[in-house]
């Protein structure tokens, strides 16, 4: 008899995204996975539209990382139109992207993932929220987080056209340049962000790393998985979020493959399970061996820690120093500790802040050459970018008039879907014994998936009403035999 436990924490009244835990006859965890809703009809929705419109439509898929979709779509449009953006356009795109990444990562650390650490994994649920974080770090710091994010968002708004859904990317360039006045203003923000990144890393150091309980959680076995790692790197194999080649390292840290975006289908295949809408991508040249760790399993991970694992270092000095410190603490590279995703996220904030300063100190960013007009006939293109939550692929085909005939996306969280399931199963295994569910289950399972910061519903925004966390133990008739609820 298979029993099923459902944890249904992920938002909204209708309950998007569920965690399903299957028990065996003994009442122990057999398997677990993250169930996501299917967005129906994406392909049909896009087909027949001008391909440039996808840069406006795809960000709507996700209220969380619209800038990532916009930039990826813009890059894919470059490829479809066979046009290279101008130097200045590339700098501006990178500037917008770095500001977005810093803002998004800071939001995650302090407000979203932060409650698990800053307030503490054992804290009562009522305190494990942003108000709890502010209570712990102090109101002044809460204000700094808000101010810092606001200024970064101003960069995205000014250059992107709209804050939540930027509209600036065009095939071959961007729609708007940057003035000298703006450059000076943004440079101030960039420098402040560097300082704030130092502070965020200090918070992590003081509150998390100096606390043995937290440190044990990070370095301990419960959230550890030996998988392949994927991320974009530049020509020196340094982490790059906007451009480069996709590098994959094996669980021992050895380069397995490095490829260009256009060849992604030679390296990634999507495994399908009958019980989930979500697909489970794996490395084609290793093969699907199930939801298992190890060098023989094609499961790979993306997102901050994966990017750092897949690289040889960071491009900027302060981020590089933090990179070295992290690996020294975690016992070398690659690090398999899922909770270190949070740490890697902060190192990336440091990197993008430093890069923002570099970009803005260079006056050439105000040059007027912001676009190369496409002259070729559009056909097909693949774009890739490192979204906050991992590698994001867009692939479009068009007719000769640039009307979309075919679309394929692999979004960041989907790359991690197999690993997320594995992490949830691992966390649950220690806490469910013969059908008895330990009270700590919800916290630990939440921590496991929150590390990946998964994008689930990716789109709908119905009212933030009651958001209970529910665990249902179900028998094989789907009848609830036990229900644990947290409002």
């Amino acid at each position: 008899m298979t029993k099923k436990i459902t944890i249904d924490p992920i938002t909204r009244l209708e309950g998007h995204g569920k965690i399903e835990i299957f028990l065996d006859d003994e009442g122990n965890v057999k398997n677990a996975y993250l169930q996501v809703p299917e967005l129906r009809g994406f392909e049909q929705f896009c087909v027949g539209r001008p391909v440039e419109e996808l840069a406006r439509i795809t960000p709507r898929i996700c209220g969380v990382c619209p800038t990532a979709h916009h930039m990826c779509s813009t890059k894919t449009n470059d490829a479809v139109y066979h046009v290279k953006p101008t130097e200045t356009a590339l700098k501006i795109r990178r500037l917008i992207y770095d500001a977005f990444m810093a803002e998004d990562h800071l939001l995650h650390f302090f407000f979203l993932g932060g409650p698990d650490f800053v307030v503490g994994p054992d804290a009562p649920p009522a305190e494990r929220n942003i108000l709890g974080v502010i209570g712990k770090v102090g109101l002044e710091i809460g204000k700094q987080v808000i101010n810092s994010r606001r200024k970064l968002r101003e960069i995205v708004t000014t250059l992107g056209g709209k804050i939540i859904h930027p509209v600036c990317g065009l095939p071959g360039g961007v729609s708007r340049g940057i003035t000298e006045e703006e450059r000076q203003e943004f440079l101030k923000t960039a420098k402040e962000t560097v300082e704030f990144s130092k502070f965020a890393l200090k918070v992590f150091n003081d509150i998390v790393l100096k606390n043995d309980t937290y440190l044990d959680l990070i370095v301990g076995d419960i959230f550890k998985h030996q998988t392949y790692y994927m991320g974009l790197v530049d020509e020196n194999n340094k982490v790059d979020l906007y451009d480069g080649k996709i590098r994959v390292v094996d669980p021992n840290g050895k380069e397995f493959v490095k490829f260009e975006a256009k060849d992604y289908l030679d390296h990634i295949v999507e495994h399908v399970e009958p019980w989930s809408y979500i697909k489970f991508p794996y490395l084609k040249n290793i093969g699907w061996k199930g939801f298992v760790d190890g060098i023989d399993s094609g499961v790979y991970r993306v997102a901050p820690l994966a990017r750092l694992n897949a690289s040889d270092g960071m491009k900027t000095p302060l981020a590089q120093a933090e990179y070295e410190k992290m690996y020294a603490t975690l016992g070398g590279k690659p690090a398999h500790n899922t909770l270190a995703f949070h740490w890697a996220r902060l190192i990336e904030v440091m990197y993008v802040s430093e890069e923002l300063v570099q970009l803005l100190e260079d006056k050439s960013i105000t040059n007027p050459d912001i676009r190369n007009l496409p002259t070729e006939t559009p056909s097909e293109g693949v774009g890739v970018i490192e979204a906050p939550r991992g590698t994001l692929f867009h692939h479009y085909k068009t007719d000769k008039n640039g009307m979309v005939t075919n679309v394929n996306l692999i979004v960041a969280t989907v790359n991690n879907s197999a690993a997320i399931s594995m992490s949830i199963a691992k966390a649950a295994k220690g806490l469910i014994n013969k059908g008895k569910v330990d009270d700590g289950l919800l916290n630990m399972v939440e921590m496991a998936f929150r590390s990946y910061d998964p994008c689930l519903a990716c789109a709908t925004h119905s009212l933030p009403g009651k958001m209970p966390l529910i665990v249902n133990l179900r028998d094989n008739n789907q009848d609830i035999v036990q229900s644990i609820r947290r409002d």
Partner: protein
Amino acid sequence: MKTLVLGLGNTILTDDGVGIKVAQKIKEKCKNIDISEASAAGFRVIDEIIGYDKLILIDSIKTGKAEPGKLHKFTFEEFKKTRHHAQPHDISLFEAFEIIKQHGDKLPSEIEIYAVEVSDTSTLSETCTMKVEAAIPKISQKIIDEQSLFK
């Protein structure tokens, strides 16, 4: 009194965008009203509402207990219990308000929350389902009347 009508939702997900459509309809009739729209929630929209005296929020909702197209009304107090942040990417509106309040920014002292009962929020389409689409003119008129927006 400076009033903002904020439509929330996603206009490419069938009924999910109804809040934005209602807000746009209100703007057609009441040119002097500020409207804003966002496909996001909580912290990602909070910057939009700073500086206003009154906020009228329009969103979609799926209670499953009413006919699609029915207009619900809530008080801000009713959302205070959503303290647990289960959504991994964002915080609740209540949390966002608290934070901004602590930050010292001016927030609307009056908040009205409307939500339209919807049925389909997972099919990609720019058109709402029939009953919801049909209800938009009436709903926008009702909100205009109730809130005396047409001045």
